[in-house]
């Protein structure tokens, strides 16, 4: 790893990190507060039988809901707003890390230094992990803050938050690793970012459709979002297989990039 390059990436993206982290912290804080304000009423409505049984499946999504604290925190992690903010670095930063520099012509200046391509890649992977980790830390701490504001810290079980953070981190790290693999494979940013976003969107779609339509449930294991089990993590009973699958995806994507990037020809930018 190159510390000067990591420092360069940090200085270039720290403001964006601050904005994203602040937004995620606020978002994380919001859902426990919403639960505290309306959770009981929502639960009563659901229990009253007013909502037909067929529609009850729509009240839960990705293991999240608004009628339990763990459910509201889980919903916060899988909600499109959180996903979108999480992808700022998992896709936005990672996909441009190599392909973006290449397109701008700055990869030449970088690789004119005594840095191997593997070292450049590893540094960018560490930067991606750092940005993702700090963003999700803000989300996790936001949830803790929201629980604290409503006096429900004990109900949340703060001891399980590191497991939740790790599960979410591995999910976004897998997206980051895939985006970096795309980034080392293309000379231009558009295909790298397009491929990465397409992968995330298809993955999200498979998870959502499997949640909302029981006949499509078999599709969920093909989605990486399926392996984010926030409720399980918060209950203290996370499934080890989730971590293994996500860790495996990261390992495969990193391995691919470490093999492909040094072998690529970097012709003069057009």
């Amino acid at each position: 790893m190159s510390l000067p390059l990591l420092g360069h990436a940090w200085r270039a993206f720290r403001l964006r990190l601050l904005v994203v982290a602040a937004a995620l912290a606020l978002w994380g804080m919001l859902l426990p507060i919403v639960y505290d304000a309306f959770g009981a009423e929502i639960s009563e409505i659901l229990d009253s039988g007013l909502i037909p049984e067929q529609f009850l499946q729509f009240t839960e999504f990705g293991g999240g809901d608004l009628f339990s604290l763990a459910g509201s925190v889980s919903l916060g992690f899988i909600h499109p707003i959180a996903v979108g903010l999480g992808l700022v670095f998992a896709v936005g930063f990672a996909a441009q890390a190599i392909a973006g520099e290449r397109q701008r012509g700055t990869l030449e200046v970088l690789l004119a230094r005594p840095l191997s391509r593997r070292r450049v890649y590893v540094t960018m992977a560490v930067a991606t992990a750092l940005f993702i980790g700090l963003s999700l830390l803000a989300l996790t701490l936001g949830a803790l803050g929201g629980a604290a504001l409503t006096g429900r810290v004990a109900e949340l079980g703060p001891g399980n938050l590191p497991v939740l953070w790790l599960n979410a981190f591995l999910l976004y790290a897998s997206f980051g690793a895939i985006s970096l693999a795309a980034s080392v494979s293309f000379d231009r940013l558009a295909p790298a970012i397009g491929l990465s976003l397409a992968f995330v969107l298809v993955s999200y779609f498979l998870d959502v459709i499997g949640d909302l339509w029981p006949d499509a449930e078999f599709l969920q294991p093909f989605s990486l979002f399926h392996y984010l089990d926030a409720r399980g993590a918060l209950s203290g009973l996370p499934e080890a297989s989730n971590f293994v699958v996500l860790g495996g995806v990261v390992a495969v994507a990193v391995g691919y990039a470490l093999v492909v990037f040094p072998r690529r020809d970097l012709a003069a930018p057009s």
Partner: protein
Amino acid sequence: MTTTLHPDGPAIATHGLGKRYGRDGVPALADLDLTVLRGEIFGFLGPNGAGKSTAIRLLLGFLHATTGQATVLGHDIARDSVAIRRRVGYLPGGIAFWDELSGERLLDELAALSGQPPILRQELLDRLELSAATLRRPVRAYSRGMRQKLGIIQALQHDPELAILDEPSEGLDPLMQRAFYAILDERKAAGRTIFFSSHVLSEVERVCDRVAIVRHGRLVALEDVATLLTRRKRQVEVRLRAGSVPALAGVPGVSDLVVDGQRVSCRLEGEVGPFLAALAGAEVVDLTIEPANLEDAFLEFYADDAEGDPSPTMVDAS
């Protein structure tokens, strides 16, 4: 695997170096045999698309050779690319920077990435007239010439043993070009090696010890600049008094001889001495020998292209 280093060996040595692109194997460079000696300024000439940048990118490990091999400062380009770049300063053609940084910050970051102190930076800044106030501005506000100066400084600021410069004087005004040539002369005097590609022939003629000319990916000439100039055919015009036209047809180096009354014109290649000796008995009123310049020598190499392929776009900046 390590490379056996020869501290006194050539700065660059290539043997049959070649590169083909794509599935069709379009050759961008073929069988390049080249030796650049330490301490010389070496010009790498050719029109756009001739293979200059491909050769440079092969030397720096950006591309992988399809055929042949090469060493830079004794390091094998296929195995020791990082070691090469530790000892080389590189200016890419049409250089791009992280534009949001200030010039000063950019030079600091690039020096940190190089891992070597920028011992020549202040001197280069002074010589190329980049002020402290300019360096505080973001690079995005720089003109093309200022960006090129920054590119030259980042390539040379750590006093590399070998500088590889791709079209280095592009965008520099004539005064700055002169300052840049003086910098090159000083680096050479300090024992450094300069390898630069160009299509500005006047600058190659001005600063280079030797030149290589590539055409369609192949080396077509590798000469001392002086030899190249000697070999080129100069245009000669002689005006004589009536009745004193000497026999010039058999003089070594003379061709295309035209005698029109008292006016004689011809092409002269090589030494001037035999031609002047042949004129010795004649009454010469006027004699004009067009100075040899590299542009003409170069265009002679490209004479075949004159009709069908206008690609040699050489520029004389003088």
